[in-house]
């Protein structure tokens, strides 16, 4: 009983450390920056985690990932937290009832969510204010971030999968 509790605690500490490390990588100036755009690491990680751990832990880690993104966002604090939490709950339920838990699904979820999130962020941050040349921000900022974030999905997916399998094996 105690052993199970320790392993479960270790699992959550490991996941939290992974989130923390990915957030630092995400926010460090110049790191993994391509043509001025950087990928978001923590959200694909939360989505992958929702696929492996289910809707509850997915929702919790999704909220945490979103709030981490909100810390550097110019939009209303909680915007990313709310969206990511709801989406990760949906991902957890979709994988349980409808879809398969594999890399293709994870990539699809990440691509769809990053585009939707980027679109909403662009709309609320620029589109609805009627700035001149707002489309430039979408094509040179929003779109590359969404594409890069989707592109790094395999790395995050296999990391989360390896950790999940390791702890699943330890828990028997």
């Amino acid at each position: 009983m105690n052993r199970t509790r320790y392993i479960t605690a270790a699992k959550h500490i490991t996941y939290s450390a992974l989130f923390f490390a990915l957030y630092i990588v995400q926010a460090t100036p110049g790191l993994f920056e391509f043509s001025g755009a950087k990928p978001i690491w923590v959200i694909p990680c939360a989505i992958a985690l929702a696929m492996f751990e289910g809707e509850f832990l997915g929702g919790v880690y999704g909220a945490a990932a979103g709030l981490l993104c909100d810390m550097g966002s110019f939009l209303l604090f909680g915007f990313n937290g709310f969206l990511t939490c709801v989406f990760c709950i949906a991902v957890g339920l979709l994988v349980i009832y409808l879809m398969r838990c594999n890399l293709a699904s994870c990539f699809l979820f990440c691509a769809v969510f990053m585009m939707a999130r980027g679109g909403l962020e662009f709309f609320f941050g620029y589109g609805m204010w009627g700035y001149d040349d707002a489309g430039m921000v979408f094509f040179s900022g929003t779109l590359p971030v969404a594409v890069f974030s989707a592109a790094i999905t395999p790395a995050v997916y296999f990391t989360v999968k390896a950790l999940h399998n390791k702890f699943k094996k330890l828990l028997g």
Partner: protein
Amino acid sequence: MSDFIKSVRFKILLAILSVIVGFMIMAVYTGGAAPLFTQAVSLVTVPVQRLSAGISRGAADFFSQFTDARALRAENELLREERNGFLRALADYERLRHENEQFRRIVGVLEERRDLVIEPAPVIAREPGSRFYSFTIGKGRIHGIKRLDPVMTAEGLVGYVIESGPNYARVATILDVAVNVGAYDSTTSAGINVYDSSTRDIGVISGTIELAAQGLCQINYLPRDSTIAVGDIIMTGGGSMFPKDILVGTVERVAPNAHGTSVAAVIRPAADIPVVKDVFVITRFEGQGER
């Protein structure tokens, strides 16, 4: 599915979503100030971000000498062209003498600025898709940095603090379109008042999306008969938000506005805003407004 909706887990998730909505409402009423979550997390993340930014900077500097050979060659050619330009310019003694006087005056003014209290701070984070090169610095309220404090480098004005946490602060740059329209705060809705050090004409700095992509901004509402010219030096005009006579940049090109009622000019900021790594926050200056 119905089992999930009836479960305790669902109720916990609803509680989490309610807390996030609470954060959003709080952010609306506090003008976007970071709620407790951000401030608590920043206590852990800021020291690590500071370390990772330092490591990243060191590694980038080391590898750049190998990877940037082509860029260095291009830069070398550019510098050679510039040197030739300067040699030609040397012939124009009178103009140089005039410019020299201008520079002496600007440097003199800055040396006399004993009213400025500055706090140096490193840039520790630039988020993916950051708005107009905005960034986070590794110092905050405990270092005396407040919201709306001006931010500059040794080269010139960079922007202002939009949010100050205990040990971090977020900075919006002068390339931001919101500087003009005041999307963030009514205090900034009038824009940043600046003047041309040659003509003494007063205008307002603002950003546009197209110019920001090139690292430029513009000065608007100059008088129709303004004689502002390419190469003129633009300084802050003072007020409650920015101290007077901080270098903003130089005029890159001049154009009348669409209605012909005033003149606008494109400014190349003196500070290299997209890649700035260390800044100074002006925490106190003469005439500073209440925050």
